[in-house]
Structure formats: structure tokens, C-alpha cells
């Protein structure tokens, strides 16, 4: 069934729907009790969203591996630094 769904949807449409769903989850979690686990979870969700945009919207999955790696490294670097800052607080 899942394969069937992906078959019907174009990859970019699937990415868009996933992004909407992930955003909704993040929004729900915004009202949860603060906690480190939650923080890491939301951060990972966010980076996942970012990678989806980079790959499927910007279309970097077709571009050279160097550029894709550059964008990936950017997301990971920013995400890690933010994560460290939140964990030490």
C-alpha cells in the first residue's frame, strides 16, 4: 500500500506532504513540557525537514556530491552547535 502511494505521488509531492506532517508534529511538541530528549527530537525533526527541502525542493540530490555534502554539512554543523548550546544550558 505504501509503495502504491509513493507510486501515485511524485517524489516532490511526497516530500511536501512529509514536511507538512513533520511541521505539525513540531508544532504539537511546542506545547510539551520542556526536556532534553524532546529538544533533541525536535532538532532532529528540523534537520530532517531541512534535508528534505535541500534534496527534493532545491533538487540537490541531482547535483554533484560535493554540493550536496556542503549543504548536509551546513545543516549538521548548525544543528550540532545548537544542540550543544541547549545541552550545556
Amino acid at each position, binding site marked *: 500500500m505504501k509503495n502504491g502511494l509513493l507510486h501515485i505521488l*511524485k517524489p*516532490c*509531492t511526497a516530500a*511536501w506532504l512529509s*514536511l*507538512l506532517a513533520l*511541521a*505539525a508534529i*513540531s*508544532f504539537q*511538541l*511546542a*506545547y510539551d513540557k*520542556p526536556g532534553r530528549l524532546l*529538544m533533541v527530537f*525536535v*532538532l532532529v*525533526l*528540523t534537520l530532517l*525537514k*531541512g534535508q528534505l*527541502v*535541500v534534496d*527534493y*525542493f*532545491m*533538487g*540537490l540530490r*541531482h*547535483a*554533484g*556530491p*560535493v*554540493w550536496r555534502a*556542503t549543504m548536509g554539512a*551546513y545543516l549538521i*554543523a*548548525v544543528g550540532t*552547535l*545548537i544542540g550543544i*548550546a*541547549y545541552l*550545556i*544550558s
Partner: protein
Amino acid sequence: MAGPGPAHYGHFIMQTALTDDRLQQSRGQPLPGDFAIWVFIFAELTVFGVLFVAYAFTRSAHVDLFNASQLTLNRTYGFANTLLLLTSSYFVVRALRAIKAGRHTACGNWIAGALGLGAMFLLLKLVEFHQDFARGITLSANLFYMFYLSLTFFHFMHVAMGMVILAVVAVKAYAGRYTADNHTGVETGASYWHMVDLVWILLFALVYVIH
């Protein structure tokens, strides 16, 4: 070798120059759109990245202030704006697909749709700014609001800038200036718009959600 140059031009070195095109090929497939916009995109992402990290580390020194101030923001607006931008980004992807299939009117229509969503984003953000100012939130109110207003205003300006670019692309698309083989302009505008979207995803999580 071409005939002798004028004496005062010195002698020529027959050296093949490494052209920009060959530079591109040596690094795999080129980036979508004009390379110049990518220099810009990487510069902008760096600025936003540094701002985000600065926000995070400043927060770690003022956790209570940040958490308390964060609660005063309207998260529903933030979420609605996320949906608007994600969807408009999706529309732009569809516009690019349309022009790759040679359907330039459809391309224009998708971009017009994206522009409409972008306009709604700006409107909603203006309402939010208005409510913030009415509550006495300014750049100098406290550290959190300083970051919140700087980041969102800076991003707001990027949305406005992206809309100007997309508007130009839409006009040219309707006028039939792009074809299935020649659509670098659409790709360039699209790449910028997705960057604006990407920044908002990070910004929304950081400023409105994570606490």
C-alpha cells in the same frame, strides 16, 4: 598561432585557461540555476547559521528569560506561516516541473500561486509584528526579543526579496521567455525561494518551538 601581435603587446603564452565551465564539470553536475545565486545563498546561509548559533549560546546563559519570553510568542502564527512557506516552496517546485515540460503558462500559474502564499506570509507576519509592538516588544526590550525581532525581520526581508525575484520570473514565464531547454532563470529564482523556506524551518523550530 595567430599572426604576430603588435610588438608592444609582448609575446603570448599559449596556455589553455581553465574555464569556469570546466571547473563546474570537475565537481559533478552543476547546481540548479545560476552559479552566482549560489554564492549568495551560501553567504546568506552562513549569516543565518551564525545568528542561530549565537541565539542558542546566548540562550544557554539566559535560559529562564528565553523560555519565559518565548511563551509570549504566538506559536499558531508561526505554524501557519510554516505551512504557507512550505506549500509555496512546493508550488515553485511544480513550476519548475512545468517549465521542464515546456508548459510556460502553467509555470507562471504555479509561481503566481507561490507568490500569493508568500504575500499571505508577509501579511500574517505584519499582523504578528503589529501585535508585538503593541505589547511593547522592541529590539531593546530584552535579549530574546532582540534575537526574535532581528531574525524574523531579517527573514521577512528575505521573503520580500524572494517575492520580487519570483515576480520577475513569473512575468517572464507568462511572456514565454523560458523553454524546456532554457529555464535557468526559473531554477535561479526557485533556489533562492527554497533557501528562504529552509531558513524559516530552522528559525521556526528555534524561536517558536524548542525550549
